[in-house]
């Protein structure tokens, strides 16, 4: 009876407890399923990877599988978000941008405390030209990682490009606090100052930028504009000259973005990354990208060409030669590989072999002016001047503005004793590039020393010789020798003697005995108030 009474008393609460547990469990199950399905619905499918290398395919499949496994074992939240974000990075690094966007959107939801995901999402969108949505994402990034200075710089740049100078200025200054002397922030502030006609501020910012980062060409270039505005032509030229010696523009370092390159398995993209690194003269990085490309696709001739060019650039001729030969083996119609190999052989003094390589390159690409020019130079070195003139004329027929070919043509004509047409060629070059030291020196030499009296012009020779010397810092004994000859032809023997002595000293200290001997002989002539005639 008592037991029955107990049951009667307790069935309802027990039932309610069971019901509550059932409802709680059911709710949890449904919510988990909803979340699971939401992730699956929004997680991008793997892209079409046919034709892609196996490493890329494997990496994507691995990351994708890993997410599936995590979902199945009930992993949710930050850990899942991190894995989805990692897949997004893989997609971004290999240029599957749509998929990267979907991954980052999911990762941001699953792991909202990680600043990388909104930042990387911002980056992909910004690459496509968007700015408004990018600003929101960057703000979110900075709320999570206030000291991540690349995000500050990116925001500043976007505000600048949207014409919001006040906000841009605040952010560039914030960037400067985080990264003292940052050239990009200083450039941004200088551009804002120029926009507001605050020339003094712009000058100060730019001078600081080039003082701290002498290799930052854009600052030199803008500084040239500021000097131009000030009417200071000499400083303007100096800034432009310095800019021309700098590497091309390189974006500011950004660890979260630069880190993506390590996840790139796309050979074309690795070649582009290497090419960008070369532009920035970062040989080590270029070598790393090309090396990875080779490991991924050892049979790709483009990879061997890239490696060959890089090795040649840093003076590793033997290695370069190996890469070009391999490129030819892989693609026997590669005109570029024949051309590059020809250049190496010429440098090694194997002129006949070089010539054959250039001719082979022309079989496949007959209108490449660079090949004709190099063929011309090879023939010049073989002292086959008439054939050289022919090849160089061909280069100029294809590209009349090819000033190297024109200079070489001048040299070939001069070697044939055709000094007048040679002078004409040099004049054409100098009308376009008046400060180029090499043709300036060549024309000065002819005008100072040619047997044809009608062609000689001492005053003009001095002008060109001075340009040549100035552009080489006045320390080239050959150019000083020319200047001395020009002074002598102009009847300025005292200056000729002084300059010849300077040339002689420099030639001796450089160990150039032949030149020293020549200059010594000429010096005696100048002392005797005689000009030197060839």
């Amino acid at each position, binding site marked *: 009876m008592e037991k029955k009474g107990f049951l009667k008393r307790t069935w309802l609460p027990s039932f309610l407890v069971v019901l509550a547990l059932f409802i709680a469990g059911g709710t949890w199950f449904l*919510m988990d399923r909803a979340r699971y399905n939401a992730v699956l619905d929004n997680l991008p499918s793997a892209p079409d990877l046919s034709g892609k290398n196996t490493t890329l395919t494997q990496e994507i499949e691995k990351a994708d599988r890993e997410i599936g496994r995590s979902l199945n074992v009930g992993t949710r939240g930050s850990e899942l978000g991190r894995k989805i974000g990692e897949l997004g990075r893989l997609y971004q690094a290999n240029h599957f941008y749509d998929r990267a966007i979907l991954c980052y959107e999911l990762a941001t939801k699953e792991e909202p405390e990680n600043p990388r995901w909104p930042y990387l999402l911002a980056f992909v969108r910004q690459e496509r030209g968007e700015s408004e949505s990018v600003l929101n994402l960057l703000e979110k990034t900075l709320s999570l990682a206030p000291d991540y200075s690349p995000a500050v710089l990116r925001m500043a740049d976007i505000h600048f490009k949207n014409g919001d100078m006040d906000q841009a200025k605040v952010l560039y200054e914030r960037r400067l606090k985080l990264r003292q002397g940052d050239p990009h922030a200083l450039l941004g502030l200088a551009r804002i100052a120029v926009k507001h006609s605050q020339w003094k501020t712009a000058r100060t910012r730019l001078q600081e930028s080039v003082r701290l980062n002498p290799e930052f060409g854009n600052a030199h270039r803008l500084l040239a504009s500021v000097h131009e505005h000030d009417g200071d032509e000499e400083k303007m030229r100096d800034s432009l000259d310095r800019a021309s010696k700098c590497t*091309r523009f390189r974006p500011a370092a950004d660890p979260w973005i630069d880190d993506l390159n390590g996840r790139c398995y796309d050979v074309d993209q690795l070649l582009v990354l290497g090419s960008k690194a070369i532009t920035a003269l970062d040989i080590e990085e270029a070598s790393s990208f090309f090396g990875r490309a080779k490991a991924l696709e050892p049979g790709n001739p483009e990879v061997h060409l890239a490696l060959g060019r890089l090795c040649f650039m840093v003076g590793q001729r033997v290695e370069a030669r190996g890469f070009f030969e391999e490129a030819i083996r892989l693609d026997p119609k590669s005109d570029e590989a024949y051309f590059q190999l020809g250049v190496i052989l010429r440098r090694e003094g194997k002129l006949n072999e070089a010539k054959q390589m250039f001719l082979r390159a022309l079989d496949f690409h007959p209108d490449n002016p660079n090949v004709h020019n190099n063929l011309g130079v090879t023939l010049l070195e073989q002292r086959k001047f008439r054939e050289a003139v022919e090849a160089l004329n061909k280069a100029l027929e294809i590209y009349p503005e090819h000033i190297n070919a024109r200079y070489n043509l001048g040299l070939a004509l001069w070697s044939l004793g055709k000094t007048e047409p040679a002078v004409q060629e040099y004049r054409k070059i100098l009308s376009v590039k008046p400060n180029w030291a090499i043709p300036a020196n060549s024309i000065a030499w002819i005008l100072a020393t040619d047997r044809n009296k009608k062609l000689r012009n001492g005053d003009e020779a001095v002008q060109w010789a001075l340009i040549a010397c100035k552009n080489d810092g006045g320390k080239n004994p050959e150019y000083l020798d020319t200047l001395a000859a020009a002074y002598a032809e102009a009847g300025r023997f005292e200056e000729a003697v002084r300059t010849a002595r300077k040339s002689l000293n420099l030639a001796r200290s450089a160990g150039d005995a032949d030149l020293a001997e020549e200059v010594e002989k000429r010096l005696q002539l100048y002392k005797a108030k005689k000009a030197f005639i060839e």
Partner: protein
Amino acid sequence: MRISKSTIVSLLALLAILIGIPLALITYEAGRTGQSVGEYLRRAISKTGTERPLKATNVNVPGEKIDFLERISIGDPVGDSKPWITHLTVVDLDQDGLKDIVVCDAKRNQISWIQQDPKGTYHEKKIGSQVRGPAHVTPCDIDKDGDLDLLIAKMGMIFPNNDKIGAVVVLENNGNCQFINHVLIDKIARVTDIQPGDLDGDGDIDLAVGQFGYDDGEMRWMENKGNWKFESHPLLNLSGTIHTPVRDMDGDGDLDIVALVSQEWEEVYVFENDGHGQFKTRLIYGSTNEDFGSSGISVVDLDLDGDPDILYTNGDAFDYIPPGPRPWHGVQWLENKGDLKFQYHRIGDFPGAYFANAVDVDKDGDLDIGVVSSFNKWDDPKTQSMIWFENNGKMGFTPHDLASDPTHLLLLDTADMDGDGWVDFVTGGMHAYPPFDRMSRVLLWRNRWPERKVVKNE
């Protein structure tokens, strides 16, 4: 057993809590994840699967291919050379009522005229003397003698070069379509565009000149002083200017200059004119992607709201080896919001997008967009070189395939060439890098929309 009223109330309350809490949780979670409750519940009870279709993000889902263009090669054939058509424009040069095409051929270093005479028959002839590296041609009666002269932007060399080898050249028409070259200025950074307009309000035609240069470029306007004399006024000291259209952008009655500056700048400027040739520089858009690849702009009232907008492509990829498509290449427009404020709208992705032209392809009253590509994955024969974005009338765009052959299309102009009331396309090919198996010089693509065929997407 009798259950009291209070027990029933308690039970109901308890049940309400037991059901209400989960419902509240579900509603909250649905809202938090941006779904409706129905959508959320559907997800909760649906079977889990592995199929995960890729949803479009900001990329347009391709529409079906509509076959409506008839391809006709016009002008000189491709021959043995690899054509370098750097610019072309449709114009009735001899003013005989038939549309012709003027072409910059950088391989031949020559401007040529593809004359339509008689209707439907095209002949190509060289005009003027050679111009090295011609980059752009703009017809304009610069001397106001009633015939069309040609403004030629001379780069000197198409590929990167920092030397001062550019020039502003005018091919003066003697009235019989015989042309004489006048060099207005030379030995300047490589010139990429020249656009005419009375910029100082004195009644003659001045010029807006874009100079790409390489490391050092600039922009200037050239004031017409009469008798073929022009005075230069600098506007901008940046390298990379590609296009400089002239238009009244702020509706104040004078002509402003728009400029697209590529290289690492990737910016669009409006030089706001005070009507007397004094310009205020306004940066209206810029991409912070230094490799954005800005390739072209044109000024057009795209949304037909009465003010000029800017149609803009980014698809240049010659800076780094190997040249090829980038995932951010595509087409966008900058909507004129008044007071020289512009809003960016992405139209769609298109690798290597080089030039876009707004045109009502299907005569449905809105402007669609034709686009050509110069840098795409040409090794794949299915890779598109020309597409069009169909406007749904609400500035929503759907891309449709047009052509995969020929490759390397740099230029697109549109006009009703045959007078049938439908706008035709004219394209130019620039084959500077391989493959060279699907080349073209100048092609006319006749619009045969009434006879169109829908091709199912594969």
